[in-house]
């Protein structure tokens, strides 16, 4: 373990990784600005990259299936998906690699949509150069990523609802009716919020309390 730890602090590659790179078109969202085929070709030349291709929609069912098939066929142990923001689809692709036995932390994304094609629409060549760089950065990073495990901890099955207006009341009741304990905190001496001050409410024109 310790040797491993030091190796990864220094950025050494522990074993010979087998990396797959997938450059997503996202329909035209990326492909209209970035030359995805060129990016995939450039990535193929990188150390430890076993396979690199461009792909229509990486997140779609067929897209995921294609990657899973490759992982099995080529014995990939790390995957770079160059598509949208990891804030959007990182969970999707982590699940995908996990379903074929790869640790989810050996998945890396390059953000070619929100941070490349969409913000450099008038500069396709520069955008493609940037995309190549971003994929190279992702590959250089994934070569030294380490598998990680999540632990489980006990959790308190109780919810704090802050505010006793119509939203707080509804959330509290839905939770409580599902047998979860709720602590409802209201600043005023009574719950009801603004809604309690209304007579009729749209669109039904009935009473609010």
């Amino acid at each position, binding site marked *: 373990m*310790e040797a491993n730890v030091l190796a*990864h602090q220094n950025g050494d590659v522990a074993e010979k990784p087998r990396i797959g790179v997938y450059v997503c078109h996202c329909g035209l969202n990326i492909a209209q600005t970035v030359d995805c085929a060129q990016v995939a070709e450039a990535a193929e030349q990188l150390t430890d990259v076993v396979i690199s291709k461009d792909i229509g929609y990486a997140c779609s069912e067929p897209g995921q299936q294609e990657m899973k098939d490759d992982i099995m066929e080529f014995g990939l142990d790390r995957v770079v998906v160059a598509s949208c923001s990891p804030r959007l689809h990182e969970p999707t692709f982590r699940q995908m690699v996990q379903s074929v036995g790869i640790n989810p932390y050996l998945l890396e994304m390059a953000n070619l949509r929100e941070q490349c094609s969409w913000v450099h629409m008038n500069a396709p060549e520069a955008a493609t150069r940037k995309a190549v760089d971003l994929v190279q950065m992702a590959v250089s990073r994934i070569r030294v990523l380490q598998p990680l495990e999540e632990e489980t901890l006990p959790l308190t099955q109780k*919810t704090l609802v802050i505010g006793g207006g119509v939203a707080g009341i509804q959330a509290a009741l839905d939770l409580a009716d599902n047998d979860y304990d709720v602590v409802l905190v209201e600043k005023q001496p009574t719950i009801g919020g603004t809604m309690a001050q209304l007579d009729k409410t749209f669109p039904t024109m009935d009473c609010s309390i």
Partner: protein
Amino acid sequence: MTDVGRHPRITLHTLSEIKDVNGYVGNFDVSILKRARYVDENECTACGDCAEACPVIRPDEFNLGLSSRRAIFSPFPQAVPSAYVLNANECLGHNPVVCGKCLEACDKGCIDFHMSDKEIVEHVGSIVVATGFDVYDPTELDEYAYSRFENVLTSLEFERLINAGGPTGGEVLRPTDRQPARSIGFVQCVGSRSAKKGGNYCSNICCMNTVKSTLMLKEHYPDMDIKVFYIDIRAFGKGFEELYTRSRRSGVHYIRGLPGTVEEDPDKGLSVAVENTATGNLEIHHLDMLVLALGLKPAASTQRLQEMLGLQLNPDGFFLEAHPKLQPVDAATRGIYYAGCAEGPKDIKESVTQASAAAARAIRLMHKGEITTEAITSMVIEEACKCCGKCAEVCPYNAVTVDVKKKIPASVNTAACAGCGTCAAECPFDAIIMNHFTDGQILNQVHTALEESTQEKILVFACNWCSYAGADYAGVSRLQYPPNVRLIRTMCSGRVDEKFIWDGFRAGAPVILVSGCHIGDCHYIDANHWTEKRVKKVHKKMAKMGIRPERLQLEWISAAEGVRFAEVMDGMEKLRQSVTPEEIAETVQLLKE
């Protein structure tokens, strides 16, 4: 409402506010300040004898001052809990020699002047933020003369007037003479959709609220002259267009144009001058009463709660959701959800929908009874640790323990560690590894980014929660900025180690930007304070070495500031152009020595 009061699984704390929240998803410790009610909540039967005896008369907040109440009172008949409440600031009886009449009047002895505020601690797994909104204060809009003329009312005051349970029993009487109003005008977008005063956003509910009010008026007073002054009517929801058409058909006049001035006539009626933009004519309308359709603004408590829970806000000041389409109910902080107007102006149906969604999201998190911890945590290499205690000092979660005196090396409590990486950045001996964001992993990215055309590159470090999200938002908004930016994501700006910066400059980077959440908004409590300190330190060192400190920039960019992100990138490009190849070569030489 009554269901909440009697539900065995709901503990209701009224007159209460959140004082502090500690812990993390699955296990939050919440301290609540419960103010004294001075009336025993369980014993009070709401008979009202106390209020009858009370000599203090005050404006009734529930009726917005259109009626009065006593110092001991029930907010409204259906209040939950139904118990009366005593306002200690108004009561004379704190000194029983002075008053104490309610004490005598209460047969059950529920009133206790010596009750004190209590601090309650609750342990919860998830949090729903449903703090609602405040209404816009129209006094600053002088053209509508709300503070000058009594017959100019707010939409909420009007609600109380037309309410059968309100101060006039549902009769729409003019405040000046208590005579029935024969004509009423409604002014739309008061405090909404304005670049100058109030919010620049649409408050979502005011159009339909006015349509509803006109229909109620026509039902009660078919002959009343009703006029609505508007920019455009937004009747976009299910069943809304139908109501709007009904209102028009019932004879309500919709006039496109907002009033320019409001003047009072000798009979206390109002002369409203408006340019009708449909006809181009300047019109003067004489009305008995004017109702201002107030917009919604973020609740006053929003900012304090945002800081306490480490949440983010929209530019409008409402809470920012994790994703506007795919996670519209979740906060970026795991285990915290939004319901209702806290997240943005919305009507009752949408509030209820979002509240049910928030409950479902909370149940989804809690139903297993256990929670997976963050895998991205730090770990200590014991043999490299010199027990200096720096890591424990900087950790915002007190997740690192180290005994400086007894020289017991640091250890990390992975359950408490949230993964900001500040400890790894601050450790002077490289004895801490930040998993998934190790020095080696990040330095690989730095070197790869700067491998080719180095002097054209702008190297950016961005924290996951604010600045990286802000960069994404710039993309979603299709804002264009220079394509030579190379961005490296860390969970927190606190992770950006000095050596990442030095390595960047050594590799020939012309300029480097470190970006994170605004001070006070840090996703990791206050880890970005350490970023700020560190960057200052590096600036000093740069100046000493003869490297222009401006080449290292620090910017705070929030998740909602896509425009700012693009602007900062433009600024960085300008700065980069000021750096000559000679300057870069000199820096590289200096740093290699």
